């Protein structure tokens, strides 16, 4: 389960790489310009990824 933590690279890649390939206004997605919609999706995905990492993290049961 330790490899799960590498999932964190996905939101990094999405946010830092997305503007190079999705730098457009059209088509509007959920009413938002394409680039902004993509970045919002990356933010939502970040929380989901961190939730998975947290649930698989043995450190969360430690009391420090």
């Amino acid at each position: 389960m330790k490899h799960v933590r590498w999932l964190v690279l996905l939101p990094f890649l999405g946010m830092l790489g997305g503007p190079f390939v999705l730098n457009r206004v059209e088509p509007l997605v959920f009413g938002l310009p394409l680039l902004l919609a993509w970045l919002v999706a990356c933010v939502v995905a970040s929380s989901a990824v961190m939730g998975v990492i947290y649930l698989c993290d043995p450190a969360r049961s430690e009391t420090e």
Partner: protein
Amino acid sequence: MNAALPIIALAVVLALGLGLWARAGHDMSLEQWTVGGRGFGTMLVFLLMAGEVYTTFTFLGASGWAYGKGGPTYYILCYLCLIYLISYWLLPPVWRYAKQNKLFSQPDFYAAKYESPWLGVLVALVGLVALVPYMVLQLKGLGIIVTTASYGAISPTVAIWIGAATVTAYVMASGVRGSAWNSVIKDVLILSVVVFLGLYLPYHYYGGIEPMFRAIDQAKPGFLALPERGQSASWFASTTLLTALGGWMFPHIFGSVYTAREANVFRRNAVFLPLYQLMLLFVFLAGFAAVLQVPGLKGPDVDLALFKLSIEAFPPWFVGVIGATGVFTALVPGSMILIAGATLVAHNLYRPLRPQATDASIGRLAKLATPLLALVCVGFTLQGGETIVQLLLMGYAFVTQLFPALLTSLMARNPLTKEGAAAGIVVGVGTVAATAIGGHSMTSLFPSLPGAIQDMNIGAVALALNVVVGLLVSLATRRAVSAQAMATK
């Protein structure tokens, strides 16, 4: 007198009262004053950390940039999200080490890890230099908010003085506890107001969010995406990454880490805080709504976009509510900055000169340093003409230079020596200062390089030099030490 004024006055009184009440039942020792006795749970740490997000920078700066810059504004959403992803791994070891060694401030961490009090002094000086523009940003925002929301009845100068006096009073009395309890009020207020503005303004003026973006795209083609040159995709990626790395390096943010009761607080917060950033989307929407409705704002005036539109759209009492929210967004981060700054002065600059000073006398000195620091910040605020985002970017450029030495100190084998860490920080900060004073950009420094590299944030050069110099000096000092050891054998 308009209806907005008493509501704004009530916010100031409430902030002061709550700040003073937070002291009740606590003896304000240095540990209580600076780090809340290291007893804060998930909720209070969440609010202190989110306090970084919802400052006047968010309220005015982000909406102002959405109005003035368009697409490049999206970097704010990304860097704030990435800050919290980094926190999952960065903060638990920092917290654990600080708790074991009873540390009070950010420079303490560097001084202890590198066994060098003078490295602590250097970090304190860099922190202070970065904190001043951050505090100026809050006071400048406060002046804009109160003056505009009071329909000019209170001048920016008077607003800045009242704000600085209020925050100084409750910081001296209650320290970080006053900030934490005011954070609760602030976040409830700003969440409600920002979501309402972000939805109401596009619907009121354009009939919806999609029609608003279509109207802007038609009037200003390409405004909602990144430009081909300048603040292009490579500027976006480099600025997002650099500011995310620097996010935890501000002394008051770093200090908020010490207030936690346990390490899991940070792991839990790292799951929810990225989602919390989505509130920025509503700030952007409010700023974009102003693009076609209050055209013509230029330079620092873009920070007024949100309020100019609100005054047109709402009755005075509701403008007062927006103003009251703005007051909290300035005072809460401002109080954290003053606590961190005063602690740096007393604990990290004065104490190395007087090692025999007791915690009690350092605590008294920190409280006395608070009004002095506030005065310095008020002085700079009344001078400056930068936009709010420019001020923040300058502060970030400085503190990001502290990141390499922090990261390597958490490794099992630190590749940096104390001399290397200090040299890297000095070269990095010097590069940032030289490029800022000289007005240099990547384009002016490297005119023959490809456009994508020229557009990169110039802070990347400073950070690269920081790392290279740090490693080279560490290599040299390690060799010198081992040669000396061989000679004595």
